[in-house]
Structures are given as C-alpha cells and as structure tokens.
C-alpha cells in the first residue's frame, strides 16, 4: 500500500489494470504536478485552482453548500486536492480529519439534484483510486451532511472506534467483482438437452404464427428461465467455492440479467491477487464457450462494509 513506503514520489501501485489510460493517474503522478496547497483548513472555502474550477467551490455565501462524503480513510493520509468530485461543476476533494481517521469529502452546491450518471461515476472512480493505495470505507452513494464540522461531530467522533477497527481489517485488501454471463446459444442447447418438455415445445411452436402458440411459448420460456436459474445457483456455488481458498471473503450478489451465470464480490489480499486471478482463469478455461467472465477491480470494498451502526 502507498503508505507503507513513504516516498514523496508516486507510490507504486501493485497493479494498475489501466496502464497508459488517461483516467487513472494515481500510480504515476509526475512530480511536476502544480501541487496546490497540500491541505485546506476544514470548512474553509477555497477558490478553485484555475479555469473551470474557479467558482466550483469558491463562492462563499452566494450558494448554499453542503459536504458530500465519499468514504472514511486513515488519518495519516495526505491528499492533493483535485477537482473531481460529484456535482456540477465537480467539487474539489479534500479530507476532514478527526483523531487518526478522516472523511473524504467535497463541497456540494444544493441547487441541483444529485445522482446523474456523471455523479455516480465520479463517486466510484474516486473511491476505487483511493482504495488502490490506502484502506477506505466507502459510503453508499448519496451521503451528504451540512458541513465539515457536522461530519466530525456526528460521523467521525461518535464512530471513531468502529471505523478505525474496520480500516485496520481492510489494510492490504481489495474488492473484485466477478461477473459471469452465459453464452445464450450454449446454455439454451443445454436446456433443450436436459428438458424433454422444452424440446417438445420447441417443435410445437416451430413454423407456427406467434399468436397461435402463446401458451406454449410462455411455458417454454418459463422452463428455460427455471433451468437457467438452477444452473446459475449451481455455477455460482461452484465459482464461489473455487475462489474461496484465494479470498478473504465472498459475497454472492443478486443477478442483474436473466442470463447471468454468477455475480460475486470478492475480498482479496492484495499480495495473493495472482493466485486469485489464476483460479478465475481456471474457470474461464473450464467454461470456455459456455460462460463469459468479467473481472472488475480492484475496487473499494463496497460489499464488505455493510455493518449497521
């Protein structure tokens, strides 16, 4: 993790899946960055750095603003302010500290509804970037409090010990999401082979107009759907069991598509990431032509911070 090798230069992130891409610069920050003042006083309005940033957060009094909260971080983290938060124009991100923890926030003007696609993307991108270097407790999208002072008073101070413990547990760990989707042709053939009734119904509706075969179609679709659900349960189980030896924890997510084969969130020790990916590759080979696997991450541990407070 970034903090374990305190170098003023960019800390090396173990693995950046987006090398050379323009939106993930965390791991290769050049030293010539026109670093603004390293830290702002909590709550102090700060003028934007330049161009479009001007006026983003620096119009005191004119507009009602609140503080949008992305997540909770260790307090020994330093953050270069960047204009990449939610809102339009985007807010400048910064930390509000309390003891040895901090909240990652940006100012948010209240004159516009929150939750546009850009806001959602900004929320997750920021948290994922941060998570690649330090432990972070991601908040669900949409957490807003009235001021940085209120964040310290009502969020950080009362929950300090829980946050601190959770952050310690997450040190050196990252979340990945595994999405598996059936290849439609392959899975339908499996169903037809395994379900004689489906096969029969297929013959029945063949070459007949749709309105003459309504009931048969519904029944056929129902059988297919049930069969795929059963396959999903079995394949999800198999995948989770196969990945478990390489994971700290696994959460089985709800499917997001009727042809999903599995949808998992996996918490992985960063230094065991290769083992994990190899295990996943193994499933890729086993399921070639049958299932398409996607791996998203590393991400902030969204699925592993659900403790209620």
């Amino acid at each position: 993790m970034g903090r374990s090798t305190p170098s003023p230069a960019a800390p090396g992130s173990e693995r950046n899946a987006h090398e050379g891409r323009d939106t993930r610069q965390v791991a290769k920050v050049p030293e010539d960055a026109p670093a603004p003042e390293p830290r702002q006083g909590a709550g102090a309005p700060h003028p934007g750095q330049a161009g479009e940033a001007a006026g983003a957060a620096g119009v005191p009094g004119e507009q009602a603003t609140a503080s949008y909260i992305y997540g909770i971080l260790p307090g020994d983290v330093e953050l270069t302010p960047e204009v990449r938060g939610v809102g339009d124009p985007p807010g400048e991100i910064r930390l509000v500290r309390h003891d040895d923890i901090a909240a990652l926030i940006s100012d948010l003007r209240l004159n516009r509804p929150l939750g546009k696609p850009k806001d959602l993307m900004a929320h997750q991108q920021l948290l994922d970037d941060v998570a690649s270097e330090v432990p972070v407790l991601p908040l669900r999208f949409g957490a807003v409090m009235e001021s940085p002072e209120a964040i310290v008073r009502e969020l950080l101070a009362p929950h300090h010990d829980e946050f601190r413990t959770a952050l310690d547990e997450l040190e050196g760990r990252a979340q990945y999401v595994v999405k598996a989707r059936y290849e439609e042709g392959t899975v339908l053939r499996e169903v037809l082979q395994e379900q004689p009734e489906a096969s029969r119904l297929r013959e029945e509706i063949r070459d007949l107009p749709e309105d003459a075969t309504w009931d048969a179609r519904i029944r056929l679709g129902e059988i297919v759907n049930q069969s795929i659900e059963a396959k999903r349960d079995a394949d999800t189980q198999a995948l989770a069991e196969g990945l478990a030896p390489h994971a700290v924890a696994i959460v089985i997510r709800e499917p997001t598509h009727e042809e999903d084969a599995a949808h998992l969130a996996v918490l992985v020790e960063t230094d065991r990431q290769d083992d994990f990916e190899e295990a996943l590759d193994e499933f890729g080979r086993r399921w070639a032509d049958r299932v398409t696997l996607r791996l998203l991450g590393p991400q902030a541990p969204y699925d592993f911070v659900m403790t209620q407070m």
Partner: protein
Amino acid sequence: MTIVQPSGGGAAGRPSSSGGGLADVIDTILDKGLVIDVYVSVALVGIELLTINARVVVASVDTYLRFAQAVNRLDLAEGQKGLPELMQDMTQGVAKSKTKGIAQGALEAAGEKLRDFISEPAEEPAPRRRRMREED
C-alpha cells in the same frame, strides 16, 4: 429491469462496450457501501437525490417470450461454436479476450468501458493528479 444508459458516450465502432461502465457502477454504489445515519441529514440539507434503481432481475412474461423466441431461432444443426447471430453484441468483445487470459482481458475491457463513459475530451485538459503518502 432498469438499466440506465449514459447519453452519448461509447466509442464509435465498439458496440461491445454497451452496458458496461455505468451499469456496473450502479450495481455497486447504489445499494452497497456503508450506510449511516447521516441520511437523516440529507433531508435537512435539502438536496434532491435522484432515485435510480439498482438493477434487479424479475422474471416476467416478457422474459419468457424472449427466451421462447431465442429457443425458436436456435439452429441446433449449428455446432458448439459460432452462432454469431445469436450472440449478444455485448458479450462479443469480452469473449474475444478469453484467448489471452480471462482475468487480464476482462480487466482491460472493464477499464476501457469505464473510460468510455468518462472521457469527455473537451472538458478535461489537465491530467488528474493526486498523491498520498505517509505524513510524518
């Protein structure tokens, strides 16, 4: 099933990236992550939170009819591989990456998708810069 697609975006000639980035984000940050009592404050603060539903699958008559249609179109004579006309556009790009290692290929693909939705060339002249390090 509610899937919010971004307006515009998506690199031309890459239909395989549809349904990627934003959909994945929606699956992740809308109903996961720490929930705290600050949500009480949201109302006090007075900002309107757009409601976007996390994606859920609810089997319906439409689902059944679509499956029936897909089965009806299925050409059993055609072998185990191929069937390009039945494959969803969405899966194609990623399917290709299987040849060079599932995990790696998918990672790259996901990165591209995220980037596709985010990149608005006119708007971001300066590279993003951020540093974190131990504070002594």
